[in-house]
């Protein structure tokens, strides 16, 4: 069972409206050769559709993928966005290879809802996996169309033509040639492509599979790269919005008189939206301080300590996700049992760029530049809020300064659009860091309970797994255990009230960090009980050759020396699956027993992701995952009570820093012949467990709750 089948996409009532017409696009996109692909061609949508709980209303018009311009440049239109993950580079490589042009010739037009075909959003490591294959097919078909056009022009049959770097040649006489640019000159050719065209075999790749540096680096190192906060429109105002001190707090008294007296300030009150606008963002922030407001809080009594009891108390009936054998039989046969509970608190996305939107209204049309991972969802949210058709809203997505799942919802875009409409001016809403923490859709707190037992032979006899509120992703069972059951307790999609005291959502590899922490810590404990080296113990329970291969690859790179743990060496292992990719990580840590400080000295991560389209980009993502994972494993944790969030900036909510970083080593298994799988998330899932396992090996103490803070390590050492 692939964990893939449980893509954890949790959308608000999503309705997809197709407002995009071919004529509209052609008007906007200028001259050249346009290649359109109808939905029937697109395996992508049926796959993405299946993965979602609501595949309703997919666009029935067409999806445009590319344009070949008279200058020979190729424009690739995609609803995907670039937030650092490197799609801007990898997608260009894929298209260039199939079209047979240099990657530098490809311009990526991303995340503009007026120009790009519909896309649900950039998350779930789906860009290369699901958008990639049809994009490659589009490239291959594009090349075929160009050859047909060349055949007409040169009066040579297609079978006698070949392409190289954007030029079509007569195979027998290379003097007879015509470039893509020449073919596109002075024309507006529209082709709709049906039927299959073969894509390249890995042996024919010119760009794919070879490391390529980021295409967006120069803009980013010179400060020229535009993020949503960097756009300036004539007459624009900056808004600051009145926020409650705690989630669930109700506004009781409001006095706007002092704020109104600030020179140049426009105060807006529209129902729940109370904002001050000024031509300088800092002046707006100062004016906001002049608002006198009294809120009444609700005392739920729920805080970061008792949240786990609360979650278990309100949990609905579980659903069986996976089951095999007979648990009762397994329990009877077990000679030693191990029952354990694993806890994971709320974690923030904390991208360096907060949520930002700049909206302006012209007639009945609204344009919003937003930091978003889901521009089409943002478009629909804005349209709903303003009561206008989605086709009247254009969302433009510039570079996004990190997302990690936190920028799929677009409250800030709705706020900016409402304020732009009310004020009659372009309005920027840029959340402060405090607002960013307050309104973050945190990684949900969750509980994993595992009951298990070893047989007389020291093998896992049964596995009774219960996951509360992390979802199923990563909870699947890939170890060879004769009797097992996996039950997930969740309220999602059932129209019930969220059990969480504030917003939660997808956080890089949603659910999988929690599930992999529980499973892989537990496997380690069972290995220790059985007196077997944890790597060997895993391999003894694995029949999946792919997982065996990544574990062995990690062990080779790491130089794993088997031993019964705890060995005092401070080394650990963990593995898992995410978005079709298998990953194994090994860690070496040092634990200061006087302070509880954990210093990770070395991390080795091996992954099998099928074809790595851009191995350099894939490595960057693995390093990013490992680095970000250090945070949730060691420090990150949102503290709160009665809906008030206590960690609202980086003084108390600590992100991984330079001084935390170990040596990072990566191995990408050579598997070019297989389809590309997820790359942006897999390597983060093992981080909690691999560090907890290495800490156990170092000091013989097992921590059941993330993060493994110095305080929790000191407490555990004292209790030992």
């Amino acid at each position, binding site marked *: 069972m692939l964990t893939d089948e449980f893509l954890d996409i949790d959308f608000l009532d999503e309705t997809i409206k197709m407002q995009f017409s071919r004529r509209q696009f052609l008007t906007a996109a200028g001259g050249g050769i346009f290649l359109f692909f109808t939905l029937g061609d697109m395996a992508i949508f049926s796959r993405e559709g299946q993965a979602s709980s609501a595949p309703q209303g997919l666009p029935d018009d067409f999806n445009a993928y590319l344009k070949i311009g008279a200058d020979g440049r190729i424009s690739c239109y995609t609803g995907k966005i670039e*937030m*650092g*993950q*490197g799609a801007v580079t990898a997608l260009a490589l894929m298209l260039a290879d199939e079209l047979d042009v240099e990657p530098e010739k490809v311009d990526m037009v991303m995340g503009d809802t007026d120009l790009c075909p519909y896309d649900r959003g950039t998350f779930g490591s789906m860009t290369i996996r699901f958008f990639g294959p049809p994009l490659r097919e589009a490239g291959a078909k594009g090349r075929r169309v160009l050859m047909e056009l060349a055949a007409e022009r040169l009066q040579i049959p297609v079978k006698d033509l070949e392409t190289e770097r954007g030029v079509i040649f007569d195979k027998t006489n290379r003097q007879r040639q015509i470039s893509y640019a020449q073919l596109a000159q002075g024309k507006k050719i529209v082709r709709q492509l049906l039927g299959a065209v073969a894509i390249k075999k890995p042996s024919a790749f010119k760009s794919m599979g070879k490391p390529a*540096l*980021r295409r*967006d*680096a*120069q*803009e*980013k*190192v*010179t*400060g*020229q*790269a*535009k*993020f949503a*906060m*960097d756009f*300036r429109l004539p007459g624009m105002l*900056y808004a600051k919005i009145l926020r409650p001190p705690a989630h669930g707090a109700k506004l009781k008294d409001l006095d706007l008189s002092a704020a109104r007296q600030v020179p140049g300030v426009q105060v807006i009150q529209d129902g729940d939206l109370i904002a001050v606008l000024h*031509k*300088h*963002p*800092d*002046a707006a922030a100062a004016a906001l301080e002049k608002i006198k407001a009294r809120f009444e809080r609700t005392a739920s009594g729920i805080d970061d300590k008792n949240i786990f009891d609360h979650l278990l108390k309100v949990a609905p009936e579980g659903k069986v996700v996976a089951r095999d054998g007979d648990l009762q039989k397994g329990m009877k046969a077990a000679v030693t049992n191990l029952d354990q509970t694993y806890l994971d608190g709320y974690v923030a996305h*904390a*991208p*360096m*760029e*907060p949520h930002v939107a700049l909206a302006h209204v012209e007639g009945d049309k609204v344009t919003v530049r937003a930091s978003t991972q889901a521009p089409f969802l943002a478009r629909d949210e804005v349209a709903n809020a303003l009561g206008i058709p989605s086709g009247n809203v254009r969302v433009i997505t510039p*570079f*996004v*300064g*990190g997302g*990690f799942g936190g920028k799929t919802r677009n409250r800030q875009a709705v706020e900016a659009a409402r304020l732009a409409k009310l004020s009659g001016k372009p309005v920027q809403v*840029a959340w*402060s*860091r405090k607002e960013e923490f307050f309104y973050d859709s945190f990684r949900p707190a969750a509980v994993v309970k595992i009951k298990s037992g070893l047989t007389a032979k020291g093998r896992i006899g049964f596995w009774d797994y219960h996951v509360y509120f992390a979802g199923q992703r990563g909870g699947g069972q890939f170890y060879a255990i004769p009797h097992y059951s996996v039950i997930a307790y969740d309220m999602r999609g059932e129209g019930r009230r969220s059990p969480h005291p504030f917003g939660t959502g997808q956080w890089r590899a949603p659910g999988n960090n929690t599930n992999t922490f529980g499973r892989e810590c537990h496997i380690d404990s069972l290995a220790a009980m059985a007196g077997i080296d944890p790597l060997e113990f895993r391999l003894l329970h694995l029949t999946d050759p792919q997982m065996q291969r990544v574990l062995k690859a990690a062990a080779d790179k790491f130089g794993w020396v088997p031993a019964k743990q705890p060995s005092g060496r401070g080394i650990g292992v963990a593995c898992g699956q995410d978005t079709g990719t298998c990953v194994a990580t090994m860690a070496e840590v040092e634990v200061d027993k006087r302070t509880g400080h954990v210093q990770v000295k070395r991390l080795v991560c091996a992954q099998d992701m099928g074809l790595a389209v851009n191995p*350099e980009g894939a490595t*960057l993502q693995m*390093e*990013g*995952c*490992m*680095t*970000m994972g250090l945070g949730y494993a060691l420090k990150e944790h949102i503290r709160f009570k009665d809906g008030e969030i206590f960690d609202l*900036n*980086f*003084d108390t909510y600590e*992100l*991984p*820093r*330079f*001084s935390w*970083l170990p*040596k*990072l080593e990566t191995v990408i298994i050579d598997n070019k012949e297989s389809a590309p799988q997820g790359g942006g998330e897999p390597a983060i899932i093992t981080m909690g467990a691999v560090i907890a396992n290495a800490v156990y090996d170092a000091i013989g103490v097992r921590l059941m709750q993330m993060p493994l803070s110095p305080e929790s390590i000191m407490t555990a050492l004292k209790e030992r």
Partner: protein
Amino acid sequence: MDEKIKFTLNGKATTITVDGERKLLWVLRTDLGLTGTKYGCGEGLCGACTVLINKEAVRSCQIAAKDVQGKEVITIEGIAGKGRLHPLQKSFMEHDALQCGYCTPGMILTAYALLRNNPRPSTSDIIKGMDTNLCRCGAHNRIIKAIQDAAGKMQGRS
């Protein structure tokens, strides 16, 4: 109170009339249109807004505009030579030492000041010098290599 502030900005004599208490970050971004300087936390905790004042790295969200009176301010837009990238900029590109790029201007300017004060930093000098600059994408180790590499090239050049 509006006041006249004269300073050098990216090599050019500049005079602005603004409320001197306003933070430099917002004056640069809003009044002067230099948006390469980023807002990250507003409290001097992340380093995204770092600029150079008299060649020292300063958090522009924490400094009042009036405090640059008579000084030399350099932002990310101002460190490249005429048509030539600064070695640090080149090195960040060559090492893929960035992902989303939002912290990058602050990283480069902090490194610029670091190398000015210590042209041959050890790895631990770099870690110490960069430790209060935050990056969420996890480019840290590549940034360290990029700085080391740039330091080597700048040594060779001078």
